[in-house]
């Protein structure tokens, strides 16, 4: 058999690596066929609502303009299995940085889905009222040493959590706008 040149061998090696990549991609995709409704990225809130038949999603109707956060959310994730969860990431205008994370998860979830905005240090939280709901406001320092705030409350069995690289006033306003009524 004729000996192959280095270039030919390199090409063959690249092809085999592409095959391995393809195999891993297929293997990663297969579970979604066998078990639907696990964590998935959606292109829009509507498509998540439709596909997972999600009801009672709490969406903000007000986002302070000076925060330069872009609506609709840049990233939307949702799952029904192993527990109900809906996550939105809002990014800053002209940037890839996430400025607001909003999570809605089942209050009975066995574990918490780690938010994409990392909280480095938390201070003691204070109890506040968000449209007559008892909520906890925690001032914190997030990744990149940026001051941020977290607000969370239980809305009829759904834990709603907002983490925003914004002031406490702004996050409370955003949180309030997710709830109906005055």
């Amino acid at each position, binding site marked *: 058999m004729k*000996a*192959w040149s*280095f270039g030919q*061998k*390199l090409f*063959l*090696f690249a*092809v*085999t*690596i592409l*095959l*391995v*990549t393809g195999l*891993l*991609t297929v*293997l*990663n995709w297969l*579970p*979604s066929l*066998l*078990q639907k409704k*696990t*964590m*998935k*990225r959606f292109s829009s809130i509507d498509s998540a609502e439709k596909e997972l038949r999600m009801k009672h999603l709490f969406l903000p109707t007000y986002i302070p303009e000076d925060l330069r956060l872009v609506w609709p959310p840049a990233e939307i*994730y949702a799952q029904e299995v*192993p527990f109900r969860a809906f996550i939105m990431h809002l990014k800053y205008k002209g940037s890839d940085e996430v400025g607001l994370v909003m999570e809605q998860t089942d209050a009975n979830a066995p*574990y918490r*889905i*780690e938010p*994409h905005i*990392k909280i480095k240090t938390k201070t003691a939280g204070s109890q506040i009222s968000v449209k007559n709901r008892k909520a906890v406001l925690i001032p914190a320092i997030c990744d990149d040493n940026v001051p941020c705030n977290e607000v969370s409350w239980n809305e009829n069995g759904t834990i709603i959590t907002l983490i925003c690289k914004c002031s406490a006033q702004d996050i409370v306003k955003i949180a309030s706008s997710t709830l109906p009524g005055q």
Partner: protein
Amino acid sequence: MIIRFLSSYPGMYITQSVLHAHIALLIVELSFFAWGIRDHHAKFRYRLLTLTLPVFMFPLYQLITPQRSEWYFRLNTALFDSQRWLELDPLGILPLYHVFVIFLLIVTAVFIVQEILPIFRERSSGTDLGVCEGTLDTLEVMLDSICRTLRIKKPEICVIDEPLPVLVTQGFKHHRIIVSNHLIEALEEEQLRGALTHEAVHIMRDSSSKTQLIYLLRMLMFYNPVSLVEFRRVVHDDEFICDAITVSKTKNPAALIAAISCFYHQLGEGPKGLSQMKQRIEGHSHNLLLDERIQKLQEIGHDGPEHFGWIPFMLTASVILIMGYLVV
């Protein structure tokens, strides 16, 4: 509880090291095919990648990207997410993480029975190779000339009174070759020279230290089926390498083949107990290795190992590391 453990750092280390070892094994085997690697010297080095890299890959990746284990990375960046499979419950009876843990426990049990228990059994029974009965002048002269050819310090040689063919090298810094008088009587001069050269090549390559180090890695990955298989293959590769070097020095493959043939286990019909069955399997596997060694000796030339290509090796190692990063 199990899924919580598998989501913790130790659990992720175990899961990912098993996955990384499989990926490394697949890439290394494909590399043999793509780069046309047939030489055992090269195969030995490539197989070391399968054994060594998975030990360090997970901590290294976590150091580089601490967020790598989080759902966001798994969903958006990873090429393969193990949790997707582990959380599956296709029949609604048993989630796959149970199956995975049972599989790892079986591999661990095999490791204990196959590797750990024999060590304790040997220690408690005090099995030794026998008392050194001294040496023979002819052996000393032969070994002296072999060591001069290989440019190594001449090891001590010791003849034992043993009715079986025995030829082993002991020690790490100060080596000692032990040979049974049965083997000395059974082999002709050139055959004995071939066998002794093979042992001297082991000393030259520092095989015992290498094997101990590789065994340590194998012990760290006691739950990993790939380590179980690859450790044996690496040890076998070392034998093939030493055979090839021996023949390149003695230029007499026929003598080495004849010497190797002396070490075949006789697999007669004996009592059919479980331990006898184990012995027969081990004997059969030992004979298969000897068959393969003889076959390789019949195929190889007298030129020793081929030139080792570092570029293909580095490319293969890089691909394993990159792929491993994307497999969580």
